[in-house]
């Protein structure tokens, strides 16, 4: 009996201490205190880069990456009307005359999928709770959150709301909440604010990055489609190339207009 009492006297304090420790670790923090816990993955692939575009694929249409038949991407009537109004600088409908490319005309942000098509680099900064994607062109960047879901009602913004996860050697980015002010590619294909993007990013080898993008936008396209592009690792450091409207307008006056209006003889 005395041994049982002694044992209890030893065990009970231990249990009390351990319980308090357990309680401290399991109390759910208030939303504002939520920390970004590291994702439970055995291996995080190194996607750092920087990555440079290879070749010219101005269209995300998988059957027509060179944009030679841009009207054939299956669009809804709503999207087709917008596409016909576009005067893009690339593809079969390319023009220098009255270009209404929002990037060229207004220095508007190009949008996530269009950024993949410019001859400027991008890079990834990976941390446990968030991956930052940095883009040289126009100095844009976006966070990809690894520890939460999309908000129930995300705002419509230029870069949207992106969440991500690692699936083996592939980084999967899920994006919603995009406004409809951008083109998805260089040939003027539109999208709506219902666009849902899935990017699958995989480092094929030391110097090669494969990016596969699925576009799911029932308001603009009659069915989802998926395009794929390849990028090469660059030895050039990342730099920022800003879009200045005054510089764009000056260039427009000096070059674009002179090449569209017949010179006086």
């Amino acid at each position, binding site marked *: 009996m005395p041994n049982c009492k002694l044992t209890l006297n030893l065990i009970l304090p231990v249990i009390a201490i351990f319980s308090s420790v357990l309680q401290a670790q399991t109390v759910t923090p208030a939303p504002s205190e939520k920390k970004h816990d590291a994702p439970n993955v055995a291996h995080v692939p190194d996607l750092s880069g920087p990555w440079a*575009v290879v070749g010219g694929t*101005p269209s995300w249409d998988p059957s027509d990456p060179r944009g030679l038949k841009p009207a054939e991407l299956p669009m809804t009537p709503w999207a087709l009307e917008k596409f016909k109004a576009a005067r893009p600088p690339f593809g079969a409908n390319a023009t220098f005359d009255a270009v209404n490319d929002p990037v060229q005309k207004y220095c508007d942000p190009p949008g996530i999928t269009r950024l993949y098509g410019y001859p400027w680099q991008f890079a990834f900064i990976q941390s446990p709770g968030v991956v930052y994607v940095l883009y040289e062109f126009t100095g844009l960047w976006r966070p990809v959150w690894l520890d939460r879901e999309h908000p129930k009602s995300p705002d419509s913004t230029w870069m949207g709301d992106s969440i991500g996860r690692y699936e083996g050697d592939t980084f999967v980015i899920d994006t919603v909440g995009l406004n409809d002010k951008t083109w998805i590619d260089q040939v003027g294909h539109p999208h709506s604010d219902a666009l849902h993007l899935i990017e699958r990013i995989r480092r094929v080898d030391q110097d090669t990055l494969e990016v596969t993008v699925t576009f799911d936008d029932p308001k603009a396209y009659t069915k989802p489609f998926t395009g794929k592009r390849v990028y090469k690792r660059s030895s*050039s450091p990342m730099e920022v190339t800003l879009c200045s409207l005054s*510089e764009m307008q000056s*260039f427009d006056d000096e070059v674009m207009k002179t*090449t569209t*209006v017949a*010179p006086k003889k």
Partner: protein
Amino acid sequence: MKSKWSIAFIVAVWFLLVSSAVSAHHGTSGYDMEKVITLNGTVTSFNWSNPHCLVRIDVKDSKGDVKDWVVELAAPTLMTRNGWTKDSLKPGDEVVAETHPAKNGATTGLSGASTSILKFAVNGHALPFR
């Protein structure tokens, strides 16, 4: 004897698949990408800025009139990665430059994109090209 200031028109078939080269932010549809001409003249300005570097060259045409050519190159970051600097051209430099001329006959040309730069010789020395 060919005039030092004359424009030498070298017509070459340029099997350049436009879409195989990553174009500038505005594409190349205003230029004749299957034609390359050579300009001989004097640099009057070299604007090393976005969206595209621009070099202006005074070139005498076949009639002896001086024409102001505006030649477009790639953005500064892209030109740097191809070995150019803001000092590669300066006012007063004598230059022999290849360019794709504007389709409409304007004295405007395209000589550089992100993946291609036509040949430039400055005061007798070649600048990087690809």
